[in-house]
C-alpha cells in the first residue's frame, strides 16, 4: 500500500471517530494546561467521554482519588449542574471530606453522594445519571470489580456520548480486562515539589505531584508525565511549569499555632 493511500485511510478513520462528536464541538473540556491539552486529542476530552483512573498500587489510592477529583473539578467548571459521586457502602471505607473538597477547589454543595449496596447498583446509578444532561459529570468508585467489563463500559460510553455527560471511573489497582474507556490514567504519588528550605527538623510539603501514565488514550499515543494540580486556577500543571513555584501561595515565615476552645 502506498503511503498516500495509507494517509487517506487514516484520515477516513479519524473522520469516522470524530463524526459522533462533530455536533458537540463546543463542548470540550480542557485540562487547563495547554501542554497537556496538546497531548490529549479532542476525542478524549470531549463532553461525554468515559475516563478511567487507576492507582499504581494500593497505597496510591488517595493520589488516584485526587486525580479523579481534579478531573471532576474540570467537569464542574465546564457546566453548571452538580456532580454525582457513587461509592459502595462500607463502614471501613475512606469517605470524601467536604472541607477537604473545598480546600481542593471543589464546591461540596455541587456534589451529590450516593451510597450503594452493590456494584450492580453502582453501574445502574451511573447509567441513570448519564441520561441526565443537566449533570456536570458522574464519578464511580469501584471496589473489587465483578461486573464492570467491556459490555458494562460500552453501555456507559454510549449513554455518555448521547447525553454529553462525562463519566469518571476510579478503579482498583488490580483492574484488568478491556473496556471502552476513551482514556485511562495510571496515577501514583510523586515527591511533592520543592519548597523554600527552612531551618527545621523536616522540610515542608509542597503542592501535590502525580506521576501520570497515560496507558490508554483513543487517538493518541500513551506517555508519562509529572503533573500537579493548581487549586486556585483549577487546572492541571505539567511539573516543569510548576517547578517555578509561581502558582503556590506565599507561606508565612513562622508557624503560628492556633488555640481553640
Amino acid at each position, binding site marked *: 500500500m502506498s503511503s498516500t493511500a495509507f494517509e487517506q485511510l487514516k484520515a477516513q478513520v479519524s473522520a469516522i471517530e470524530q463524526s459522533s462528536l462533530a455536533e458537540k464541538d463546543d463542548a470540550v473540556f480542557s485540562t487547563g494546561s495547554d501542554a497537556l491539552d496538546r497531548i490529549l486529542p479532542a476525542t478524549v476530552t470531549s463532553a461525554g467521554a468515559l475516563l478511567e483512573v487507576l492507582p499504581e498500587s494500593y497505597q496510591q489510592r488517595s493520589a488516584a482519588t485526587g486525580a479523579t477529583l*481534579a478531573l471532576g473539578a474540570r467537569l464542574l467548571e465546564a457546566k453548571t449542574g452538580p456532580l454525582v459521586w457513587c461509592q459502595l457502602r462500607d463502614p471501613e471505607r475512606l469517605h470524601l471530606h467536604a472541607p477537604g473538597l473545598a480546600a481542593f477547589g471543589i464546591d461540596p454543595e455541587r456534589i451529590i453522594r450516593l451510597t450503594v449496596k452493590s456494584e450492580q447498583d453502582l453501574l445502574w446509578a451511573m447509567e441513570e445519571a448519564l441520561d441526565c444532561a443537566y449533570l456536570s459529570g458522574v464519578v464511580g468508585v469501584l471496589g473489587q470489580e465483578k461486573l464492570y467489563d467491556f459490555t458494562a463500559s460500552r453501555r456507559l460510553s454510549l449513554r455518555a456520548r448521547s447525553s454529553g455527560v462525562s463519566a469518571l471511573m476510579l478503579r482498583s489497582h488490580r483492574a484488568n480486562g478491556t473496556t471502552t474507556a476513551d482514556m485511562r490514567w495510571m496515577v*501514583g504519588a510523586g515527591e511533592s515539589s520543592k519548597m523554600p528550605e527552612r531551618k527545621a527538623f523536616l522540610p515542608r510539603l509542597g503542592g501535590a505531584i502525580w506521576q501520570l501514565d497515560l496507558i490508554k488514550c483513543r487517538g493518541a499515543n500513551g506517555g508519562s508525565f509529572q503533573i500537579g494540580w493548581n487549586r486556585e486556577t483549577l487546572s492541571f500543571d505539567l511539573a516543569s511549569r510548576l517547578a517555578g513555584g509561581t502558582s503556590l501561595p506565599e507561606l508565612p515565615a513562622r508557624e503560628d499555632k492556633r488555640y481553640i476552645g
Partner: protein
Amino acid sequence: MADITPDVPFSLITSAQGGIRVVAMSQAAREAGVQKNQLLPNAKSLCPALRVFEYDPAGDEAELKELTLWAIRYSPWVAANPPDGIMMDISGCAHLLGGEENMVRDIRTRLNAFGFSAAICIADTIGAAWADSRFGSNSAEIIDGTDALKRLPTAALRIEADTVEQLKKVGLKTIGTIINKPRAPLAARYGKTLTDRLDQLTGKKPESLNPIKEPPEYLVQESFVEPVLLLDQITISLENLAVTMTKKLEDEGLGARRFCLSLYRMDGDVRNIEVRTSCLSHNADHITRLMGEKLDRLSENYDTGFGIELITLGAYFTEVTNHAQISLDGKKDSGSLRDFQALIDRYVNRLGFENVGKFIPRESHIPERSEELIPISAEEKNPKDWPTFLKDLQGGTHLGRPILLLPRPEPITAIAEVPDGPPVRFEWRRLKYRIIRAEGPERLAPEWWQPADIAREPTRDYFRVEDTDGGRFWLFRRGLYEQEENPKWFMHGFFA
C-alpha cells in the same frame, strides 16, 4: 389444622376463671351443644369428638388486620373492628361491582374461598350494620331504616353487659322497646352511652370510622378477568393506570407527591408499592418508571401464587401545580432541572433517601464533626458558604484539609520528636512509613459549649506529613506530652 373440615367439631380454648374455658367453636361443635365460656370438661362431655386448639388473640388480631387491608379493594374507607369485625364505608363504591347485592355476594364468595364464614350487612349507619351482622338473621343482608332492628336484643347496641342486665331487669329486652322512648330519662338512668348508641343507630348522631390505611385522594384500578401470573403483565397495566391517573390529575391541574400501587393476589395477600416524588408529579412515564424499578426488585422474592386479580393505583398529597414551563421558543429545554429532579426521585426510591446525600457544614472544628451528610431532600435553613466556612475552620493556618477521611481515627505507632514535633516514622495497618516532609502542628480542641463528654476530650495536634513514596497523610497526636503520660498517635486523613 390441615385435617379440620367443617364437619369436625373444634373449639378454641384459653385458661380463664375456674379452669380452661371455650372461647369460640365451630358450627359443628355449636350444634353439639358447646357454648362460649363453657368449661372444657363440660364441653368434652357434650361432644366427645371435640378437638381443641389454644386461643391466640395476637394472631387473630394480625390476621384481622391483613384481612382489613385486603378489604380496601372494595372501599378506601375500611377499619378493623376487633376482635372479629371489619367495617367499611361503601358510599359510592357499590356500583363498581354492580350494586349492593352483587357486592355482598362477591365479598361472601371470596371470604368463603379463604375459609372464612362471614355475617355481612349493609345498612345506613355503622350502628345498624354492626347490630344486624352480629344479632340479625343472616338472610337480611341489606337493611333500610331501623324497623328490622327492633326485635334485636339490646346487646346489639354495642353497650356494656351491665347496662344490658339493668335493662333486662325492667323488662326492656329488645331495641324496639326503647328506641322511641324519651332520651333524657334513659340517659339519667343508664348513662349517656346508651342514648348515644341509640342515636348512632338511627343516624341522628353522626359516627365515622377511622380508616386502617389513609385513603388515597385519587384511585384508579384494573381488575383482571383471568388472574395474572407474570409481573411483566402488571407493568403493562401499570402504564395504563398511570396514564389514566395522570390524565385525571392533569385535568384538575393537580400533581401528587406519593403514589401507591397495590397488588391483590387471589389468596387475599395484598402487596403495596409506594413511591414518593420530590416535586409534584403528574407525569405518567415518571411514575411508571419509578414503580417499574420497585416491581423489578419485588419480582426477586415475590410469588404471584395463583395470580393477581386486581391492581389499584392511588395518589396521595395532591396539590395544585403550575403547568410545566415551556421555554419561549416552544421547546422544552433538554437537560433541564426537571430531568434532574426525576433522576433524584429514582435514586431515592431505589437506594433509599438516606443514601442520596449532600454535604452541609457544621459548627465544629473537630474534622469528623465539621461536616454532615444529609438526605438530599432535607431542607436546610442557612445557605452555606463553603469557602468562608473553610477559612473559619483553618483560621490563620495553611495546612489545608484532606480530601479523604477515615470513618474514625485509627491508632498508629509513631516515633516523634518530644514535645511537639512531627513523627519521623509510623506504622499503620501493618505497613511502615518513613516521613521525609512534615508540617504542623495545627491544634484543634473541642469547643467548650459541647456536651461534657466531648468537651473534655484531649486536644489534638494535627500534622501533615509526606512519606518516601509521596503519600500524604493527616496524623494527629491526642493529648500533650507535658500533661499526659502517653499521648497517642492517630491516622485520620489523606491528601491528594
